[in-house]
């Protein structure tokens, strides 16, 4: 604990770097993957194509992706944007599959009744389809958030500082509490993001809680 309090300033500043580096891919994944997942669900011919592509991207080990993205895009290996793009690729890869599942999980009867009530195609999408997909989308973004926060640490190997700095620096200087601080703070940030997402879900998707409560009453 002594090491932690003696270096509290560095812990806080690296935590902020870490939060910034992981927040961008999480947000990007939501806005890129939800439309892609919807396309994969809506147009059956595109589903195998989209899901296979994201499956292959997800298979690439992170250190290799950190090398390949700069080569393909002509940016520097040692830049923050490299790490953000690589992590966005993984986040989108996880999220597209979940988004396709989320839209597929909606009972088509709801959509047909919405059409019968006079909703236009796009009105139905935003007022009925998206809210009903919400709970599964939230579950997906929680998975994305946890794994992104953990993956950011590898970025230190290409010189992008995050809490991963405590891993390499602590290892080289043989300071166990330093490495420990890095691991624990990464877990703390993952937990913090998860709590925020759950809280946001409660605010934006109040119907998910009602459905859950009814489900619990039904089984008890």
């Amino acid at each position: 604990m002594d090491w932690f309090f003696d270096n509290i300033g560095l812990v806080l500043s690296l935590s902020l770097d870490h939060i910034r580096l992981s927040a961008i891919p999480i947000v990007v994944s939501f806005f890129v993957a939800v439309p892609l997942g919807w396309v994969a669900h809506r147009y059956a011919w595109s589903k195998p194509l989209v899901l296979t592509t994201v499956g292959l991207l997800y298979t690439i080990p992170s250190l290799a992706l950190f090398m390949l993205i700069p080569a393909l895009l002509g940016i520097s290996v040692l830049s923050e944007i490299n790490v953000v793009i690589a992590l966005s690729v993984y986040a989108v890869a996880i999220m597209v599959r979940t988004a396709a599942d989320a839209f597929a999980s909606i009972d088509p009867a709801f959509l047909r009744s919405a059409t019968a009530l006079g909703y236009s195609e796009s009105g139905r999408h935003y007022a009925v389809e998206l809210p009903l997909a919400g709970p599964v989308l939230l579950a997906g973004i929680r998975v994305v958030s946890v794994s992104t926060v953990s993956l950011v640490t590898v970025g230190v190997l290409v010189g992008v500082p995050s809490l991963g700095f405590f891993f390499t620096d602590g290892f080289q200087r043989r300071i166990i509490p330093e490495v420990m601080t890095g691991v624990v703070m990464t877990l703390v940030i993952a937990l913090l993001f998860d709590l925020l997402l759950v809280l946001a879900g409660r605010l934006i998707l109040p119907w998910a809680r009602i459905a859950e409560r009814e489900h619990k009453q039904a089984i008890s």
Partner: protein
Amino acid sequence: MSLLAQAWQWLIDAQQYSGDGSIPIRLLEHLCFTFAALGLATLIAIPLGYFIGHTGRGALWVVGITGAARALPSFGLMLLLVLVLGVSARLWAAILALVILAIPPLIAGAYAGIQQIPRATIDAARAQGMTEWQILFHVEVPLSMPLVFGGLRGATLQVVATVTLVAYVGLGGLGYEIIQGIPLRRFDQTIGTAIVIVALALVLDALLAFATKLSVPKGVSAGRLADVRAKDAG
């Protein structure tokens, strides 16, 4: 010349294929780490997952650890274990970290594999007079195979990726060329190696995807109407 072309030049250079640190040796090291970790993790995780799936005890625990494990930064865990167990025991520390990483998806696969079997199937087996062990080995294990392989596929993906990081503690593997090449700005070497790593990950994943398909028991795949019709037509 573009970076990719330079990487390709590096990759096809005969120098890369002979001697101590050559690509085939690094590849072999990489595979040894991967298989050692997956083998040990399977020995621990599959019986445990089957036990939880068969008895239903500790099911909540499975959900908890698979969620928490995703948050654990594997690189940090590995360095921490190396420091705690001592740098001279770094080989075992690295393998331990990889095993810890591989266990949650394997347990989840084995558990879910048994969990998804319709209750009626297991009750029918019991009604026929099968013992608990017979139910496990003749009904639950065969029917769980596709999901067990699914779990193994997830674990392999994680382990192959993390083995690229063992070079940081001086243990070789394909990651060595990248971790050593970055500070020297030898980008032909780092990108060339990245291509090899991607190829390895894709090949292992494809093999396991194929094994998953093969692992569906005959009775189950024959029961699918669509398959039967496809065969008739072809």
